[in-house]
């Protein structure tokens, strides 16, 4: 077995690119860290996320209400998207780089502290991403129900800024959920031969797998866009509840 080399003087040089290597992980730390802090504030300091016909994605579905609980209502739901995003293959890249420096950037030396704690590979819990996916789909169904509800006002059908925000949020979450690597595997990726059982014809499984593979290329973009849309949707409804802003009805 070859030994990794630690060659001579003046090494390593920190890699240069169009942007400094630290820009991306620092963005992740700020954006993801900010979202987590906001989520903690939302989950532990608020018990409702409903404003008239708008329901915040943090509080949907209303699992707490089903069991008659009225405190920390969001806590009963947010663990699902948290688990889904935590075990997501794209977010693994982000948090392993930004938060555990394994590595901080490509070809960048890891901090000395990482050497004192032997690296043992990724967390095995992440292998359960497929189950988190199923749970996330259930939550997504409720979010689409909320979108329909967001267009129904007391005087009938209408469109408010909140309705559009919830619609965009549901679309982005759908894109994120269905471009998932685990779903790609489940829908057909685990097969070696698509045509073998179909007399050389393209099967539905192949067509779905192919479509999902196309969307999967942008899984990272879906991940960030949907994270921000959840944040914006919740913040909008929170500000409405607090009376800081008023919903604008477009028609």
């Amino acid at each position, binding site marked *: 077995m070859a030994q990794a080399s630690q060659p001579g003087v003046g*090494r390593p040089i920190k890699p240069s690119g169009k942007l400094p290597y630290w820009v991306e992980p620092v963005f992740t730390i700020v954006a993801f860290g900010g979202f987590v802090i906001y989520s903690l504030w939302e989950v532990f300091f608020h018990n409702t996320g409903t404003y008239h016909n708008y329901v915040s994605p943090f509080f949907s579905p209303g699992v707490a209400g089903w069991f008659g609980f009225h405190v920390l209502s969001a806590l009963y739901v947010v663990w699902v998207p948290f688990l889904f995003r935590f075990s997501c293959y794209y977010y*693994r890249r982000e948090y392993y780089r930004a938060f555990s420096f394994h590595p901080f950037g490509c070809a960048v030396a890891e901090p000395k502290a990482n050497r004192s704690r032997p690296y043992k590979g990724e967390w095995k819990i992440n292998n359960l*991403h497929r189950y988190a996916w199923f749970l996330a789909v259930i939550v997504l169904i409720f979010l689409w129900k909320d979108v329909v509800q967001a267009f129904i006002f007391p005087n009938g059908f209408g469109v408010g800024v909140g309705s559009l925000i919830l619609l965009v949020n549901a679309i982005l979450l759908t894109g994120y959920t269905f471009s998932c690597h685990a779903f790609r595997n489940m829908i057909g990726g685990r097969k070696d031969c698509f045509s073998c059982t179909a007399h050389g014809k393209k099967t539905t499984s192949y067509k779905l797998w192919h479509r999902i593979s196309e969307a999967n290329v942008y899984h990272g973009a879906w991940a960030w866009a949907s994270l921000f849309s959840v944040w914006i949707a919740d913040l909008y409804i929170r500000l409405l509840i607090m009376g800081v802003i008023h919903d604008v009805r477009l028609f």
Partner: protein
Amino acid sequence: MSDQYVLSIFRGDQNEGEEKTYQVPAIPGMVVLDAVHYVQAHDAPDLGVRWNCKAAHCGSCSAEINGMPKLMCKTRLDDYQGQVVHIQPMRTFPIVKDLVADVSWNYEVAKKIEAFAPVNAAPFRMQQWDVDRVQEFHHCIECFLCQDVCHVLREHDAQDQYFGPRFMVKMAEFEMHPVDGADRVPQLKNEGGIGMCNVTKCCTEVCPQHIHITDNAIIPLKERVADRYYDPIRKFFRRLNKNKKEESSSSTVPSKV
């Protein structure tokens, strides 16, 4: 445009060495390998550098240019206008001399992987869309830049625990082939150490052939390992199926699924 480039090239071997500075006249369209050849021809005839095709097809001239693993023949010098261009050998492998690294460990790993094992004798009848997936992996030129940048091998010296991204691609190439019948999933989990990869995608970033190493090879293989070893529901149904087969006294055929 500056009329010359300043190169700082590592000179030495595994035990000692240092960077030496060379000045090279700028020629439009020049790549790093051109500049290294200029240095070899004019200033340092004993400069060690491995190269063959000069067209990004042979994967020989891998090095680290300003700290980033790249092919010297595919890296234009005008991307480094106004900078000193540091050229060093691949850090993950032992240095033979100057820019030449000893990549023989990779060939030892290659021997451990079970080769393509067709279920039928050639010629094979396959649909193009079935083999599109594995044809992406055939683009690999074995430059080993992905192995070089992989932090598992580079920072943690875990060559005895992980085959590295290049060989995940190779295993995917065989494992996903429509007529291959071998089962490499146990090897992926155990000896291959696919769990060591934490999907930070640096291998994909440095691949000069633009193979989606993580998304199309490593992650689908990880999912197959999860199917086999980490999915209790699939495990349950597999066991149930096995019991049924045993009950009906049919012979058990090793299966990839």
